[in-house]
């Protein structure tokens, strides 16, 4: 990393229409092992898109590639006409990406409010207009975190930590929100509250949401459109109905009992 600003996103011509997150033909391999092969997907403004796949399908690698946390071998990720892949995570955030992590990564020593402020400070720098419109108190209230505002993030109950990660990402005033297994470890009540909150904030912020999970029922309930990733390739996509009836998906995914992939851990 350099001290200088990351500014290597190239413009891909004039914008056409609304905000777009486009992943085109992304390949990624780790020391010869191909983890993502020709993955293409898109998410439009205000859309909630799901990405499912069994453990090891490459879901988290894809989200790390999209947010420029790791470089890709070929293909590219373009947000609102700016190439984000192979830049820096800071540039991704500036271009409109907010994300959560599969294993919660809060700033545990900071308070709940400070966790959100960290992101908001970046937003105030990168897009002052949009950021100034965000009321952090409202945002915390929307996710039932007001009472915890002055708590150390590390001392929060688990479900609240997951919600705080989403609030932190939203404080960036993102155009696209990437949620990596947001419902992991939540009970049914918390999960349905989460679904409501994600829908609401997608509307309120006008942001597209890309949700990654292996819980089929959760994704089916939340999303307008779904991609199915298996062994590094997109094997199906479409509405929840279409995906549910896709024979290939049934074979690799739903074929297991109880509509759940087997989990070995």
């Amino acid at each position, binding site marked *: *990393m*350099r*001290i200088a*600003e990351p500014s290597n996103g190239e413009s891909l011509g004039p914008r056409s229409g609304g905000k777009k997150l486009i992943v085109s033909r992304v390949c990624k391999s780790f020391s010869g092992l191909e983890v993502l092969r020709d993955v293409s997907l898109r998410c439009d403004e205000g859309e909630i898109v799901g990405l499912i796949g069994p453990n090891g399908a490459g879901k988290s690698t894809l989200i790390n590639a999209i*947010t420029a*946390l790791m470089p890709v071998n070929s293909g590219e990720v373009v947000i609102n006409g700016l190439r984000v892949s192979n830049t*820096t*995570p*800071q540039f*991704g*955030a*500036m271009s409109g990406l*907010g*994300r959560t*992590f599969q294993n919660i*990564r*809060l*700033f*545990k*020593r*900071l308070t709940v409010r*400070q*966790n959100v*402020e*960290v*992101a908001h*400070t*970046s*937003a*105030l*720098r*990168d897009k002052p207009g949009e950021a100034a419109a965000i009321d952090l108190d409202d945002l915390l209230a929307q996710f039932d975190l007001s009472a915890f505002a*002055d*708590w*150390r993030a590390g*001392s*929060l*109950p*688990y*479900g609240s930590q997951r919600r705080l990660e989403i609030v*932190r*990402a939203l*404080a*960036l005033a993102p155009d696209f929100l990437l949620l990596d297994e947001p419902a992991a*470890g939540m*009970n049914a009540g918390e999960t349905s509250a989460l679904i409501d909150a994600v829908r609401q904030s997608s509307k309120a912020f006008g942001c597209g949401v890309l949700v990654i999970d292996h819980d089929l029922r959760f994704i089916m309930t939340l999303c307008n459109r779904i991609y199915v990733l298996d062994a590094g390739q997109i094997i199906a996509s479409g509405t929840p109905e279409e995906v549910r009836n896709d024979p290939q998906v049934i074979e690799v995914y739903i074929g297991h009992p109880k509509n759940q992939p087997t989990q070995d851990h």
Partner: protein
Amino acid sequence: MTVKSSVLLGSAALGLLIALIGFSALLFAEPYHQRIVFIFMVNLIIVLGLQVFMGNCDITHFGHIGFMGIAAYAVAVLATPIAIKKTALATAPFGLSGIELPLFFAVPGAIAITLIVAFFVGLVMVRQTGVPATIATLAFLVVVHVVLLNWVDLTRGPRAFYGIPIKASLSTATAIAVVGVLIARMFRDSRWGVQLRASSEDAAAAAAVGVRMQRLRFAAWMLSALFLSVAGVLFALFVGTISPKSFYFELTFLTLAMLIIGGMHSVTGAVVGAIVVALGLEVTRFVENGPDIAGFELPQMFGLTGFYLGAVIVFGMAFRSEGIVGPQEIEEWWGSRQQGKQSDAGSSEAPNP
């Protein structure tokens, strides 16, 4: 930039404590003890500067005293009277033996020279993290020491540099320490300070929310160097005679111990650590000389002070790894006690992972 009222409150509480120490020494203490309190104030400013970098970046810093040495020697070379330089520093390069600046120029000059060095060292430093960064700071300290020791024409080498005008007073040092507390608190609790602390906890998560860690680290590095250069100038202008060994491992470890014992993640910790370690040091120094206590003669125990510092660090780390104060500031103590009660109740809600 607006300053949060909690920051002002906390700084005021600590500032009052420091002012109380300084002014009671001014009013009631003998010169010998005033001297001890002056050195304490200098050490406090060093520890505050160390906290600005270490506490916010979570990188152990062994090089801070190097900046102090550069500033002390810079002000010495610039401000020492020509009459003294004629004999003491006759062969100084760049015609420096014929220059005598008034303090009004010499002090800012010395600070500027130190900051220029800090700037270039910082460009390299902020690229490192963890152990390599710490080793780099240690290397910097050694480099400064070797230069001070061997650039005999400029520094008189291992021999003492004497004749520096004695102009610093205890009241100046106290005032600077009080202002230092406020500045350190304002930095720590500013938006950028919070971002920096976030990035020191989880660099990847911070990057994902747009935090530019290296820039913030660089800012902390420069601010820290500013504190250290002020400490160096104060020290030189108080003692009047300096030598390279004044700015080496002994002072490095003393001030590191102060910060770590108090708790490096808070300014309150820096202040408390400086006070506690300094008090303990005076007591051990007293005992070391084998005093008579109530007719009972204690044996002389040389090296007790060094033993004390070591023991305090070992026990401190073993039983309170976050320091006496922990990561919280003075005004948060009450609030955190409240929160502690709540979080005991809250933790039972957390499901098993």
